């Protein structure tokens, strides 16, 4: 509910910025910056890369601010969609001779393992590492970036129902993988051959 109010306020600021209101743009930037920083830093480790990508995202946001329409989704989804594409473009630029399929998941080489430092979450980390890159991305968008399914849909260009189904299947698989891993560990501890 608080998020909804927050999004409404943000949409209002962006609509005012569309008409040339400098202060509204400044306030919208202030509110969006932590979101964008968090989004990018979950996917890139080097601080310089994060700063560059955050800057690129906001410059693109400013260039496209006139095209934002509240009925198409939240401002948060609009901006994170821009950040998502900035990450893709950066990955392409870094590896110009490797196809996107070969390029691997966004952020897997960087922060996914770092995110799962807690020892209690070791089993979960292991399970997530076995998921496909696009499946990991959906989980990070939902639980890392805190996006709603409709917002994930905007960022990934999917329908909300498709995101819901994908998430539901992923959680089911993760539960099964964790149960299986715990059972294997229990057998190993008891020393059953």
């Amino acid at each position, binding site marked *: 509910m608080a998020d909804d109010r927050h999004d409404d306020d943000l949409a209002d600021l962006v609509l005012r910025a569309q008409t040339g209101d*400098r202060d509204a743009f400044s306030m919208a930037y202030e509110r969006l910056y932590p979101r964008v920083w968090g989004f990018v830093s979950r996917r890139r480790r080097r601080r310089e890369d994060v700063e560059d990508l955050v800057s690129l995202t906001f410059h693109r946001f400013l260039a496209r601010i006139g095209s934002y329409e509240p009925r198409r989704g939240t401002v948060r989804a609009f901006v994170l969609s821009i950040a998502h594409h900035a990450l893709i473009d950066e990955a392409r630029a870094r590896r110009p001779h490797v196809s996107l399929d070969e390029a691997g998941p966004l952020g897997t080489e960087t922060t996914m393992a770092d*995110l799962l430092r807690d020892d209690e979450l070791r089993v979960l980390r292991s399970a997530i590492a076995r998921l496909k890159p696009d499946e990991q991305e959906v989980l990070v968008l939902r639980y890392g970036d*805190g996006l709603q399914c409709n917002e994930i849909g905007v960022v990934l260009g999917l329908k909300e129902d498709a995101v819901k189904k994908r998430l539901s299947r992923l959680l089911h698989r*993760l539960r099964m993988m964790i149960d299986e891993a715990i059972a294997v560990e229990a057998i190993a501890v008891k020393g059953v051959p």
Partner: protein
Amino acid sequence: MTIEEQLDRALRDSEPPLSIRAQHREALRQELLASFEGRPKPRRPFRRSRTVYAVAVAVALLLIGVSCAPTQYPVTIGKRIVFVVQPGDSTALPGPRAMRAVVEGVVSTAPVRVSALVERRVSALLDREGTTTLYVDVFDNGIDGELLATRLAEQVPGLLRAQRNVTPLDGRARGRLFDRFGHELHIVPVKREEVQRAREDYLSLYDRTGRAP
């Protein structure tokens, strides 16, 4: 701890402290505000208000309503062949009943489509100077009036030198304003049954008065 809670805990917190990114945040703000100032003033996108849509819908409904209003409009139901016979020739003319028989004979033998002839009426009017005007009205579905006039003139000696004129006979079709516009703009043909009804109205008037309306 549910799996959602574990994921939330595992993936949520990875942001560096505010102090680390404050410098970048402020520098980027200045850059963006400079760009914001420098960009061309945005034009407010044109949005139609609800009032405009409401007026458009009302006008559309009004037009639909008006186009459904009943009306009458002229339709061609046949042809009128008028012979103006000079005084000297009028003695050779048969009477209206005999003339009707001649017309029927002509249309049954002439190369006109007899099936196209729906009804026929013949009337004669004698004026004070002795000029006789003969009206032959044929109610048809598209026969050639000129050809019929020529055949009649050949069959009746008194008509050979008569001045003749062929004009369409107009009746009143009943329908909606939409049908009228369609007919007048040659977009929608008049329904056959409407033409027949107009013809019957015309003939009924004809029979009541005994002469062409």
